[in-house]
């Protein structure tokens, strides 16, 4: 009798100890992973004299001069606008096209559609460099080099498969009766999809859209190959600053432009974090 009473207490205490260790270790690891981002933001507010010091300075008088300088430069502003255009364009196009085919795969009986679906799934293993060479040549020939639309279409190569498979698993989990009853009530297939399915799938659609836009926002290889001056994006600017070996790395510029690139993405990602994690899990298990 006594033993029974003691044991749970001891067990609880041991579990508690383990839990504390886990909490402390978890916080420590999180801080470790956040440090580079923290350091990037810190450095972006430093003057040159505060950057190149030993030991590295933790306290300094912050300056906005790097931001002021780079946000006034025409090429950076233009690239920022380009990145927005391309990310939104590619995101919206692929969510519409990808959600429709994802729905087709989930709910509509189509002979042979499954084969297409599998082929598209397999295409996620195609390295972008395999597409970059011919795209560059074709875009040049057709006069489409350095255009937003070229980059938007190039991003569809990886965004549509991503959206399609993610939304397919989302649509599969919806109850079938939803559109069946709508279609019995005289809705067309389009009506059932756009008036019934799309509205209730809004959270999933929105988070997939945001994640697609993030992927397009960060893409470097296609942007490097397919754009030049007119349609070039922020990652290209950063690659340029980081790879500038003539003047040496301009850390203030690198971190300021880096921060400008990262901040909007972080805000959006945190807004949809719950759905983002769910989407990741679904992508891993059902993709």
């Amino acid at each position: 009798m006594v033993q029974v009473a003691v044991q749970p207490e001891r067990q609880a205490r041991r579990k508690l100890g383990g839990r504390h260790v886990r909490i402390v270790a978890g916080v420590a690891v999180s801080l470790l992973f956040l440090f580079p981002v923290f350091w990037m933001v810190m450095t972006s507010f430093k003057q040159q004299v505060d950057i190149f010091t030993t030991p590295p300075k933790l306290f300094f008088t912050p300056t906005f001069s790097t931001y002021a300088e780079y946000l006034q430069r025409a090429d950076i502003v233009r690239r920022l606008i380009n990145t927005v255009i391309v990310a939104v364009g590619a995101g919206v196009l692929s969510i519409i096209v990808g959600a429709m085919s994802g729905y087709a795969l989930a709910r509509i009986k189509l002979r042979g559609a499954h084969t297409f679906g599998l082929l598209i799934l397999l295409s996620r293993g195609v390295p972008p460099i395999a597409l970059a060479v011919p795209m560059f040549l074709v875009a040049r020939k057709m006069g489409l080099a350095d255009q937003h639309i070229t980059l938007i279409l190039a991003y569809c190569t990886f965004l549509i498969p991503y959206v399609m498979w993610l939304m397919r698993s989302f649509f599969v989990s919806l109850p079938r009766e939803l559109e069946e009853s709508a279609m019995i009530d005289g809705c067309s297939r389009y009506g059932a999809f756009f008036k019934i399915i799309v509205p209730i799938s809004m959270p999933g659609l929105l988070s997939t859209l945001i994640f697609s836009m993030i992927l397009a926002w960060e893409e470097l290889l296609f942007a490097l190959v397919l754009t030049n001056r007119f349609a070039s994006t922020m990652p290209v600017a950063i690659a340029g600053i980081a790879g500038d070996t003539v003047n040496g790395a301009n850390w203030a510029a690198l971190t300021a432009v880096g921060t400008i690139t990262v901040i909007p993405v972080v805000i959006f990602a945190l807004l949809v974090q719950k759905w983002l994690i769910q989407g990741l899990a679904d992508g891993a298990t059902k993709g």
Partner: protein
Amino acid sequence: MTDAALARRRNHGKWKDLLVRWSFMLPTIVLLTAVLAYPLFYTLQISFSYFDMSIFGAGEWVGWENYETVINDYRFWESLRVTLIYLIIALPLQVALGFGIAFLINAEWGGRGLLRALFIIPMVVAPVVAGGVWRMILDPLWGTMNFLLGLVGIGPFDWFGDPQLAMATIIIIDTWRWTPFIVLIATAALLALPRDVFEAAKIDGASWWATLWSVALPLLVPIIAATFVIRWLGAVKLFDIVLASTFGGPGKATSVINLFIYEEAFRSFHFAESAAMVMIVLVLTMILTGLFLRGSRKLEELY
């Protein structure tokens, strides 16, 4: 109305329905044929052709010549070797770290949600930014890393000058950028584990280690395998981080295959040879991806 007219009408409706059904799939098929299938076939054509600079396109057919050139190029093999080393070290490391950290940050307390949210941040830092910022942190002269290591009496290291260290640098940056992604997948997986099994194990008096090894792990094997496949699909695309941090150096020590092909195509304008390399890499990737997908399905059935 005659029977024939009725039948025609029904038939018409059937065709219309078929058209409507396919119209959901069609935009994807058309777009991906144009931007994915067509470029791949064009690459295939270029890989068997002489590249004509005057028309900037595929010239006459040369058979396997480009492939022979590539296979006899030691730099190509060197680049494949470097890529393989990266994959063999980085992938298991990231998957193991990701699941380990997920276990840590899932301890139940008030700040759990916050920690999970914080792990989203490195995951959405553009890889090219990650490369650039880490280049700054690891700078041999002014970098924070060497300073911090110096405090505990280690180093200084020349992170970008030594071939092996440069590879370690790439793996460190890549691991920093991608482990959070695995942490989040693993977190969702851990939360989805059935609680009653663990309670049963506890009642049976299983030790903590035994519970982890023979209860949790088998349940997690399918998702670990799936995570591995997803990470593999991302890892074969490694490019941005290398471009922004080591640029393939020193020498060609970190010139992973994507960077090497990029340089050959767009700096040296060896489009035909690049196309041949692309086809070889594509076939290798497809075979391995197929194998991994199969393997992960098998594991899923097994457990």
